[in-house]
């Protein structure tokens, strides 16, 4: 009882602190931007550098990803020069999932994180089995045949990955990719909204959202849903584009983003506007520290962030305790 009261008091203090800092700064870069000059029904938010009604943002984001789904992976490689693969590998390395873990990959779209997760867990399991065999070299014939049978029936729990995305086109592309890679076991595809997940409470060990949370209209709701579906002890991990700290790198990054990326979008995918939205939405996303406090407000503990590539991408991690 006392613990929950303490939690509420801590949250209230943190909220009041943030309000003070926001008014002191003058300009709030936190989405969604609530312009209370309009009536409550017509709250507006940002879509890239445009201001749109909140109801419209989800529709427009859906349209963007519907258009880019077919060329999504090729464009990722072209835009980041293949570095996005390293970022995702680093996410998995930080996650260090163990066999038996259940992953929920929200905004998982084409399944990059889930495929890596299953691969990682599979190699972990192989390593475990090899270790078990090594230490069991002097076993009797009976014990050895028993250990073979456990490998087949897989006594300990299988790891599963659930890919959840609001966009059916992205999931379709992901499924085709899974089939071509030959990954079928332990993978499921679910259509769902990050702000309202179609899962029960306390279901997953790990919740990831990679390069998806900046497209969500109400990020705080998505964070609360993440808290809900995670098991106690579960980990929330968010990979997202963030603010570059080094000023020289920031200038280069801006120039590259605004000059090169829409051009690549037009040439490779035939869609300038979607990629213009992409680079603008990156600028509208809060900084590492702000997002960290948003995650703490949702109720996560031990929130940390790691910068990759000088702050171009940040990995935020928190635990549900």
């Amino acid at each position, binding site marked *: 009882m006392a613990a929950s009261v303490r939690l509420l008091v801590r949250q209230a203090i943190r909220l009041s602190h943030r309000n003070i800092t926001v008014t002191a700064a003058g300009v709030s870069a936190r989405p969604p931007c609530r312009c209370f000059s309009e009536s409550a029904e017509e709250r507006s938010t940002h879509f890239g*550098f*445009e201001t749109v009604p909140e109801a419209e943002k989800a529709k*427009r984001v859906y*349209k963007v990803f519907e*258009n880019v789904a077919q060329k999504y992976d090729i464009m990722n490689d072209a835009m980041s020069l293949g570095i996005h693969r390293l970022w995702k590998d680093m996410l998995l390395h930080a996650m260090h999932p163990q066999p038996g873990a259940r992953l929920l990959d929200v905004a998982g779209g084409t399944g990059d994180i889930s495929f890596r997760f299953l691969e990682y867990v599979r190699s972990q399991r192989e390593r475990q089995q090899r270790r078990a065999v090594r230490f069991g070299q002097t076993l009797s014939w009976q014990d050895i045949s028993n250990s073979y049978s456990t490998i087949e029936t897989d006594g300990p729990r299988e790891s599963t990955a659930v890919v959840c995305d609001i966009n059916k086109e992205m999931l379709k592309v992901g499924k085709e990719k899974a089939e071509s890679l030959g990954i079928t076991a332990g993978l499921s595809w679910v259509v769902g909204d990050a702000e309202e997940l179609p899962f029960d409470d306390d279901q997953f060990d790990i919740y990831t959202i990679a390069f998806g949370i900046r497209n969500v209209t109400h990020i705080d709701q998505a964070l609360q849903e993440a808290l809900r579906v995670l098991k106690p002890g579960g980990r929330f991990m968010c990979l997202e584009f963030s603010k570059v700290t080094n000023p020289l790198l920031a200038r280069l990054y*801006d120039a590259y983003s*605004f*000059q*090169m990326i*829409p*051009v*690549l979008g*037009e*040439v*490779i995918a*035939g*869609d*300038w*506007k979607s990629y*213009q939205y992409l680079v603008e939405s990156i600028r509208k996303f809060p900084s590492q520290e702000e997002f960290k406090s948003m995650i703490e407000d949702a109720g996560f503990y031990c929130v940390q962030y790691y910068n990759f590539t000088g702050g171009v991408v940040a990995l935020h991690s928190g635990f549900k305790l």
Partner: protein
Amino acid sequence: MWLLIPFRWINRRRHCFTVSKVVCVQQLRSSSTEFTNIHYDGLYPGHIPTTAVQKALLSIGSGVAALQNPYRHDMVAVLGETTGHLALIKLRDRMRNDPEGYAVLTERPRIRLSTLDLTKMASLPDGSFGREYLRFLEDNDVTPDSRADVKFVDNEELAYVMQRYREVHDLLHTLLGMPTNMLGEVAVKWFEAAQTGLPMCALGAVLGPLRLNASRLQSLFTSLGPWALQSGRCARCVLSIFYERRWEQSLEDLRRELNIEPPPVIPKAKKKT
């Protein structure tokens, strides 16, 4: 009908566009994957303002993409838009100096299935321009609505000239009697290069023959090519003709008026699969 569009783009960090023209909000249906918004940034529906750097990158990128995959018509279109500024100005001036061309520039007709009266055109006699155009569309299984909208031209009038050039391309096929196979397209490109001076046409004219086999190359260089170039040089500006008012005119008559000789040999038209 005339609306002042607020230019939020002026507030953006990197891009300061000194645009202050009023834009006519015509509900032109765009064929590309656009958001269906009444408010659009730019000078005309579908306009995407670009910096010089972006235009340069676009022209290089679209050139490479179009060479790799000639079926990427949108890349050919983008190449034309980003490289054709000077040629478009010259074309526009030619149109202005011609009374019929001036009428085209002011009235801004568009050639789309929705604006064409297909039943009336089908009822026209054989040999008339409208009937032959319809026959061309049916034989080659093409539609005038497949032309991409202009996006990267930063002047509203020049954008219309570019759009008109694209829409007149099919009519040129009819006028020149060329089918839509590779040889026919290259012949039309040679004509257009001589007529308009657009760098994209010149590039297509030079690189198109690389994809032809030996017999077609021979046909191109000996008869079709010289005829196309000669006609292109001598012909009246094809963009200045108000085609929408000339459907009943006989094709031969129109060719004579435009100083276009009939084709020496018609390459076999293949049905598009």
